């Protein structure tokens, strides 16, 4: 068979090699095979698909990504050069999707919490117990990128919090990507299982460097136990040439509370999907997103909140700040199932356009089958307030300072929701100096 670099066939060859090199528990081996067939059948999405209409991933499909070379020399200095917020607690670092123990620390992991690399878990005897969670929320059948990630399942992070355990320090998972001579495909997998009545904060940081494109294709699955409180942060600071496709899936147990904050600051094409399902009654979720884009960046946020159970509240706020010729897409789907009475769902997407060439496509999608529900949604698009700009300048601030201050102000309510102080402080600073060139 001839290998065509731009077709999935090259992935087929890589998959064949991959399956020879790695062994998995039976259940996962068949999941992996299924996943590759799905990917093979689906191919990369095109803009003909409704869910990808405004996000053209041709640049990804046309790049011949390869599995990362092993034993890449990535130092602590390389990591520090990315200036990622460090949280002082347990920190697992992944280089091109592979766990890097030398860069990681699991000091201070409290009793009742296990933080391991997926590779470690898969080699361990309890692999099967963990494996049941993989692929349960992140379905491979209709999503090529999820299928691709699942097909190459081998490493990533597994965080397990036992029932009733309250974790004070946030757990930090860092995913750094760097291409060598060839564009690499990094495909980490994250699994978080928070037991009943537990509380935990997890931060995923995604970053990269170098001029060569790479694809960071991440799948995160989170199981929020009954009465558990999980606060989840996804910080996306990919390199200018980097692509990221990430999906976060969470199932919320009875009366649990889950919040997700997805913050995008960098990357050529970034797609963040968040799919939440209320699996028990009385749950509450907050879904926040902030995305800053300039030049020719494309940021796509897709959210789905599935109110499958009654008496659940969801609050969703996504805000975008777009400069240059950047484009953003927001698609917020809320499903309220027949039985999900007393649902309270609030969705809002607000965009600040800093240039005339920037563009947002925003689309709320409500599918409501129950009758006793409260659902609201709204979208606004605006520019910087000229009166405010003049007011600030009349006090002695330069035009750029005034613009930065107002840009920061636009995002300030979202920043206020960030409970990990180190992250909030860094984002405060980043926003105050963020300014797209030429508007």
């Amino acid at each position, binding site marked *: 068979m001839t290998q065509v670099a731009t077709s999935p066939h090259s992935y087929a060859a890589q998959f064949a090699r991959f399956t020879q090199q790695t062994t998995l528990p039976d259940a996962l081996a068949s999941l992996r095979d299924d996943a590759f067939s799905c990917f093979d059948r689906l191919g990369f999405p095109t803009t003909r698909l409704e869910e990808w209409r405004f996000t053209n991933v041709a640049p990804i499909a046309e790049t011949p990504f390869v599995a990362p070379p092993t034993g890449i020399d990535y130092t602590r200095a390389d990591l520090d050069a990315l200036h990622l917020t460090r949280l002082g607690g347990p920190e697992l670092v992944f280089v091109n999707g592979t766990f890097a123990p030398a860069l990681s620390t699991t000091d201070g992991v409290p009793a009742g919490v296990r933080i391991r690399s997926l590779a470690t878990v898969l080699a361990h005897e309890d692999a099967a117990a963990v494996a049941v969670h993989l692929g349960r929320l992140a379905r491979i059948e209709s999503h090529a990128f999820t299928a691709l990630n699942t097909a190459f399942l081998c490493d990533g992070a597994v965080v397990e919090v036992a029932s009733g355990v309250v974790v004070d320090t946030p757990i930090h998972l860092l995913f750094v990507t760097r291409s060598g001579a060839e564009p690499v495909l990094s495909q980490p997998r994250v699994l978080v299982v928070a037991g009943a009545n537990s509380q935990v904060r997890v931060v995923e940081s995604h970053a990269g460097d170098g001029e060569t494109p790479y694809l960071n294709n991440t799948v995160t699955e989170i199981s929020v136990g009954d009465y558990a409180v999980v606060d989840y942060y996804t910080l996306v600071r990919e390199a200018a040439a980097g692509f990221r496709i990430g999906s976060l899936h969470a199932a919320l147990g009875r009366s649990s509370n889950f919040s997700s904050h997805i913050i995008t600051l960098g990357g050529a094409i970034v797609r963040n999907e968040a799919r939440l399902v209320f699996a028990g009654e009385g749950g509450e979720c907050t879904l926040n997103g902030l995305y800053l884009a300039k030049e020719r960046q494309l940021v796509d946020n897709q959210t789905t909140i599935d109110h499958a159970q009654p008496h659940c509240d969801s609050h969703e706020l996504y805000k975008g700040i777009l400069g240059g010729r950047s484009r953003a897409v927001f698609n917020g789907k809320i499903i309220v199932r027949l039985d999900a009475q007393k649902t309270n769902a609030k969705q809002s997407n607000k965009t600040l356009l800093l240039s005339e060439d920037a563009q947002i496509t925003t689309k709320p999608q409500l599918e409501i089958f129950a009758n006793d529900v409260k659902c609201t949604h709204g979208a606004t698009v605006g520019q910087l307030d000229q009166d*405010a700009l*003049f007011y600030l*300048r*009349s006090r*002695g601030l330069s*035009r750029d300072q005034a613009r930065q*201050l*107002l840009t920061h102000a636009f995002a300030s309510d979202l920043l206020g929701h960030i409970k990990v102080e180190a992250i909030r402080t860094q984002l405060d600073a980043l926003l105050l100096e963020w300014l797209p060139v030429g508007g």
Partner: protein
Amino acid sequence: MLVVRNLHAKVGNRQILNGIDLTVNAGEVHAIMGPNGSGKSTLAGVLAGRDEFVVTAGSVTFKGQDLLALEPEERAREGLFLAFQYPVEIPGVNNAYLLKAALNEVRKHRGEPVLDAIDFLTLARERMKLLGIDDSLMDRPVNAGFSGGEKKRNEIFQMAVLEPSLAILDETDSGLDIDALKTVAAGVNAMRSPDRAMVVVTHYQRLLNYIVPDFVHVLSDGRIVKSGGKELALELEEKGYGWIESAPAAASSEAPPQTVESV
């Protein structure tokens, strides 16, 4: 300090200022009065550099420089301050943050070292006390949700911190009850000094009982139609504007400066 010559300005296609002449020397307080829509705020806006006002003729020099050639922030750093008639609400921008940034820009421009957070707070607290302003105002977003009176006080507070050489107060008195008016006036008076000038725009002579002006000018239809001493304000209060609007223009505003009163 400020010399305005034959100033004409328009907004859109509408001519609003039709030849303003005004000279303000250091140490002087000028009051500008005039009916609604006569162009008082437009004049203030042109001086502060609001870009929707287009100067079509005339000149303005400030401390010997061509004021109209400067950006709004450069004017501020040179020492011009406008207390807005309608202070802008800016949710999400912290009052203290703005003021510290503004003060440090001004200080940098003057060649003075920037203040750190602690020195800034010490200064700000002192000025707040002077103006009877509550500490909590500093931690709130700029003007957002402020009452009318709080907004006006906040403007004067900013002025007290920035210490401009020329302050233009556009209807800082409107909406203030008598107690608030007295506090604001006391704050303004405390700032009066031989090297600082003020232009006070007001509709009512009441404010001028507390901030006693050296000169009073009447603006009508974009022109100064009459100038005089503080007694002109009383006359206006009594007779309204009708009697001068048709009168021939302006006595000179360049009368010798009077002694500066402090209250």
